[in-house]
């Protein structure tokens, strides 16, 4: 592991630093460096925020499934799972920072919260969830920490209690188990809440027919139960590898992920069917926008999800199968999240019906973009009714940087904490 590990950490550190630099640059210049504009006001940052909220689920669902429903197969990987929950919940919160114009005011959400808005609630449940999963990880690891300590870089070890007798150690184990059991029922509702509240942030927007409706929260849960276990599979493979005694664990996780992906696709196409059946109206137009302009993203989503389902359902007992399947479903979910954004914005809510002699259509009222574009001889319109959003270089650098940062922290923690047997 040594050389490879160092190399991976080095690359991740460089990417993370580039991301931080890009964030500082964006903080100085403003969000003009992104490709978002007034008609298209949320972009890849918000898509990634929804993605990380989803991947954060797996961890806690897995670890609490053990303690509430007694699914013993999952036990060995529980600490890795809850640690990944913590990391991704934090990632989701970090992802908000580059998106807002005034990150230095983000704490206003706690001093002046508007209870009607779902964003402060989302922030609240996410932070509680992050704290809970950190505590949960600690509680589970307590006996091992006492036994082996936390190893810091440069060979130092802290929190090791070498003088514990075997009896005391056993005592600690029992205690840790009891605490974990007590924490599980508290943590599980929050695991569900983070997805529902995140979905509600979008699903309550009557002006955005692509999101509006009751089905968004269930699809968020399905997406979370697809991405979450897949992330846990990958993380456990990194830490433990495909050990013989863990095979049932991987199998169970792979099944959960594959089954949830099926449920997600079902709900998704169910929604598609209803939208297309109407043959007119805003919901229908949103779907047509997907099929017309974003078919490639939808294709990535569907192909990768289906491939992931097949691989996870069949090849759950080989490393390559597990890795390929988990990555495939995650790519599918990522595309799914990305596709949340464009059809919501490019269907401008203010549409005026125009009825002419032979035809009738809905005319989208153009929106001012917020800057002067083009040149004197090739001016570009200030008022647009369609915005072709492609993430800018700065947006990509920050997005990749956040991913590198959390992977770095995750790997570092995996090394420091005594998660291995």
């Amino acid at each position, binding site marked *: 592991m040594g050389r490879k590990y160092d190399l991976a950490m080095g690359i991740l550190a460089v990417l993370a630093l580039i991301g931080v630099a890009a964030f500082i640059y964006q903080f100085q210049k*403003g969000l003009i460096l992104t490709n978002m504009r007034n008609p298209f006001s*949320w972009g890849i940052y918000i898509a990634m925020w929804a993605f990380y909220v989803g991947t954060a689920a797996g961890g806690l669902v897995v670890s609490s499934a053990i303690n509430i429903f007694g699914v013993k197969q999952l036990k060995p990987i529980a600490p890795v799972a809850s640690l990944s929950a913590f990391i991704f919940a934090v990632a989701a919160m970090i992802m908000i920072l580059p998106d807002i114009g005034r990150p230095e005011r983000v704490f206003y959400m706690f001093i002046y919260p508007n209870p*009607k808005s779902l964003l402060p609630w989302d922030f609240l449940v996410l932070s509680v969830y992050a704290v809970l999963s950190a505590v949960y990880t600690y509680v589970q690891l307590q006996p091992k920490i006492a036994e082996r300590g936390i190893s810091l870089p440069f060979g130092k070890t802290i929190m090791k209690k070498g003088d514990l007798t075997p009896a005391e150690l056993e005592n600690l184990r029992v205690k840790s188990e009891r605490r974990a059991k007590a924490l599980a029922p508290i943590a599980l509702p929050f695991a569900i809440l983070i997805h529902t509240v995140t979905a509600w942030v979008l699903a309550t927007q009557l002006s955005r027919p692509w999101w509006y409706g009751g089905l968004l929260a269930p699809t968020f849960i399905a997406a979370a139960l697809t991405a979450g276990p897949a992330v846990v599979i990958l993380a456990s493979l990194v830490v433990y590898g495909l050990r013989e005694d863990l095979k049932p664990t991987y199998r169970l996780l792979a099944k959960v992920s594959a089954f949830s992906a099926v449920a997600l696709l079902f709900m998704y196409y169910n929604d598609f069917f209803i939208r297309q059946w109407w043959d007119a109206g805003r919901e229908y137009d949103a779907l047509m926008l997907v099929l017309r302009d974003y078919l490639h993203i939808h294709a990535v989503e569907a192909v990768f999800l289906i491939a992931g389902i097949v691989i996870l359902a069949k090849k759950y007992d080989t490393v390559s199968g597990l890795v390929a399947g988990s990555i495939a479903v995650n790519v599918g979910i990522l595309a799914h999240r990305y596709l949340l954004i464009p059809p919501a914005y490019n269907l401008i809510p*203010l549409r005026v019906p125009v009825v002419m002699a032979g035809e009738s259509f809905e005319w989208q009222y*153009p929106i001012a973009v917020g800057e002067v574009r083009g040149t004197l001889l090739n001016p570009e319109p200030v008022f647009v009714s369609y915005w072709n959003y492609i993430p800018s270089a700065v947006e990509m650098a920050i997005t990749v940087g956040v991913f590198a940062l959390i992977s770095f922290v995750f790997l570092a923690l995996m090394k420091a904490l005594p998660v291995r047997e």
Partner: protein
Amino acid sequence: MVRYGMIIDLNRCIGCRSCAVVCKIVNSQPPGTWWQRVETVGSNEHMVPVGEYPNLSEVFLPIPCMHCENAPCVDVCPVGATWQREDGLVLVDFERCIGCRYCITACPYGVRQFNWQDPDENFKQGFERSGFEENWFAEGDYKYGYPKDHRTDDGRLVYTKTRPRGVVEKCTFCVQFVDQGIAPACVRGCPGNARIFGDLDDPGSEISKTLKDRAAFRLLEELGTEPKVFYIPPARKEGRGGVRYGEKI
């Protein structure tokens, strides 16, 4: 209780965009930002009628902020930076806004706009892109706009000439004038006299009387936003003031 609203008579609107320009100047809007828009319904270009001769239509539709009674932007703002004042004006507190742009997503009328960069930068860039070598509004120089900052009674900053970067802004019904008992600039600047501004709760006000006499509609009423901007629908004009292209006169 005062509750301000506006009527726009589409029969009188000639699509000249004076309201948009006077609004832009008086409220010191940076390049690319327009609180007030006027477009020709159904057309890709303003002032180009839609349809095929002889069935042409050319309706101009000005869009300010609707100052919705049940405003989605107020509901979604996580920090209460956007709020509805007692007189019905929906305002943005520049010192509170965190720039999350959730309100832009929520507003069905597309009136909210973000300060994507520093206004000084924006002006410089605007001049360069429209072919002017020198920056006419160098930092610290005179810029157009109502000169003084305006705060509400409880001290919230709702108008300032130099916009902070990273906050949202939108039509305020010219709060700095309304608080001095003066009508919004677009109402005063409209050459067709198409707009009426006043207190909807006062049965004697011009706006209330007009609403009683004339059929008026509001935009996207089905969304339940209860806009306080009313429109008087354009009547079909036949043989009056139009140009006829028939063979014989």
